[in-house]
């Protein structure tokens, strides 16, 4: 293991998140067994107050995980100089088999925690807390994800040996290597952009539909999820090429570097935000008809769709801007 402050910070966050997951998991089991809004006992009151603690803790975990996600990528990039063959985060993450799973789990935890907070927010709008059991059942599913994230991260850092020769983005994101990354890189610059535009149109269309009809939000959520995948694919296959002005450099991480003006954040932040909001809208739809939520939930869902569409629009503008200002000409 490499003994480094950012790694210590990341492990600390992971350990605290795991602690929260374990504790709130145990609490969730109690809620599922004993929650009863009609009961006015002290024990029920104590559970209600404890639920406030769980919400607070999850909010904190989500923020800390978001910061940890950024730091994880940042630090992988910086540590690249420690490994033979690594030039950016990809090389560092490839040092052992846990690197990329740790990253994916981190992203997963971020989305899961965000969606849970959305559910929590919706639950608290209803005077009888109608979603409490759903919410805590979901929490039981998220807790193992958080634990897996912490464990993978620990395994990754413990097995980070500097004498390993790793392969970096130039090797990983090239069309003639087996694996998911290369699939993304080999899709073809034009195809990826076409798919991106088609799915973006689907998002816009379904967004307009759900805003008018006030139903079918799950279609919008599906479209958002698809746009997330298409967006990431297009970044690897096409957009990164424009940013690097190099027809062979397909790396989704180097765009986060100062050399490229931190442009990656302009792409990723709206994309992640918009996706989370879009998925949240789909998640809440089944509950929109619960009597105690009828008055408030549809408004919340509609607002989420609006925010999501704004996020995707910003992402789209960033993509167009990246292509427009580039000196690289891929088509025509």
């Amino acid at each position, binding site marked *: 293991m490499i003994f480094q402050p950012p790694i*210590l910070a990341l492990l600390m966050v992971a350990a605290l998140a795991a602690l929260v997951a374990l504790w709130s998991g145990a609490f969730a089991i109690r809620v599922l067994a004993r929650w009863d809004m009609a009961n006015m006992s002290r024990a029920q009151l104590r559970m209600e107050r404890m639920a406030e603690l769980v919400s607070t803790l999850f909010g904190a975990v989500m923020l800390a995980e978001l910061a940890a996600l950024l730091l994880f990528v940042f630090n992988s990039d910086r540590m690249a*100089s420690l490994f033979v063959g690594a030039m950016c985060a990809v090389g560092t993450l490839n040092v052992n088999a846990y690197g990329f799973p740790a990253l994916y789990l981190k992203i997963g935890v971020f989305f899961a925690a965000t969606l849970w907070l959305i559910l929590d927010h919706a639950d608290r709008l209803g005077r009888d807390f109608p979603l409490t059991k759903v919410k805590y059942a979901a929490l039981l599913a998220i807790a193992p994800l958080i634990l897996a994230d912490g464990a993978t991260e620990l395994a990754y850092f413990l097995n980070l040996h500097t004498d390993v020769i790793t392969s970096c983005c130039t090797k990983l994101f090239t069309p003639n290597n087996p694996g998911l990354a290369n699939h993304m890189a080999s899709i073809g610059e034009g195809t990826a952009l076409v798919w991106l535009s088609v799915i973006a149109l689907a998002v816009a269309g379904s967004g307009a539909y759900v805003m008018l009809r006030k139903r079918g939000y799950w279609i919008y959520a599906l479209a958002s999820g698809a746009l997330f995948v298409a967006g990431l694919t297009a970044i690897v296959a096409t957009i990164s090429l424009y940013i690097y002005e190099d027809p062979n450099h397909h790396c989704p991480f180097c765009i986060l570097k100062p050399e490229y003006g931190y442009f990656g954040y302009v792409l990723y932040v709206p994309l992640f935000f918009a996706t989370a909001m879009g998925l949240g809208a789909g998640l809440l739809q089944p509950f929109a008809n619960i009597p105690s939520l009828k008055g408030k939930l549809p408004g919340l869902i509609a607002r989420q769709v609006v925010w999501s569409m704004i996020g995707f629009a910003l992402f789209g503008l960033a993509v167009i801007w990246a292509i427009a200002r580039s000196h690289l000409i891929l088509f025509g």
Partner: protein
Amino acid sequence: MMTWARRQRALADYTLAALSRRKGKNIALVAIFSLVVFALSSAMFFAAALRHETTVVLRDAPEIVVQKLIMGRQDLIPGDVVETIAGFRGVTSAKGRLWGYYYDRINGANYTVMVPDDPALIPPVGYVAVGEGVPRARGLAWEGAPLFLSRYEGDLKRFDVDRTFSRDSALMTADLVLMNPQDFRAFFDIPEGLYTDVVATVRNQNEVATIVTKASNASPQMRFVTRADIERTYQKLFDWREGLLVVLAGAGLLAFAIFAAEKASGLSAEEAREIGILKAVGWDTRDVIAMKMWEGGLVSLGAFLIGTVAGFAHVFLFDGVLFAPVLRGWAVIYPDFALAPHIDGVQLMTLALLTVVPYMAATVVPVWRTASGDPDAVMR
């Protein structure tokens, strides 16, 4: 959205007023917290600056160093290797180097003695150029005093000091003694045609690995060290020492977190009553938690800023006086130079996470316990 922002603002207002009402307690809290952050940030800035320094120094180093190994130990390398290396495609130049260490029996210091690559730096016969640490270690009183070096009992060789290196980037040059090749061979008794090692520069960075592979096939008894290897070694060394200091600071942080948790759970009667009143006049458990989070946020933000700025000043204005011995190693000759200010996002983010998160974690449960009191408690 608007309501949310206004509510946060009102909570922040209230929190600021509450903090200033309990000035004594909060100043003590921030002061101790800042001290911990200061230790942590000093360690991190110092290590990062050293790392940065080595990168800068190594930027001009040759891409490949070739050493001859005999029974695993480095041996003098014959000059014909230079031609062999220079013959590889992609190598722009190859040169034999002369350098070694000299143990100064007078003060127990170790100097690096070498013949510079750059012909312009080679001193005339009988002269040396020295790093600023050498006259300091020797206590040479005046500019131009000669340097006497003794190889064994009774031996004394005089060199005149041609020039002394300036202080910037002293890390690598503090203990340096530059000689003319003729003097070097005579002083260390090295025959013509042999070198300490051979350095090669390469046209294209990306070809280094290929060249090294080819060259090691051609001359298996040679060892090839690349610049990246050297850089890695330094990085690891500094990382390790930094980690050590951070763990020490972390112990301090843990102690502080326990202290903060104590403070947060042992509310004064006055404060407990105040929270009771807030709940009675219509604050929800959440509102109280949010207010307390503001309090924790402001305290840790304040401590973070104070500690970070103080650490920055300590390292870059006062040369890290408190930590230098640990991080630079225990060599007799300390480099004496101002570190170039260097700061980056990873450091700041790490610092923020390492300080704010433990504080929040330590206080959240006590805060929640305080906030979940019965609103009707103050009626009795």
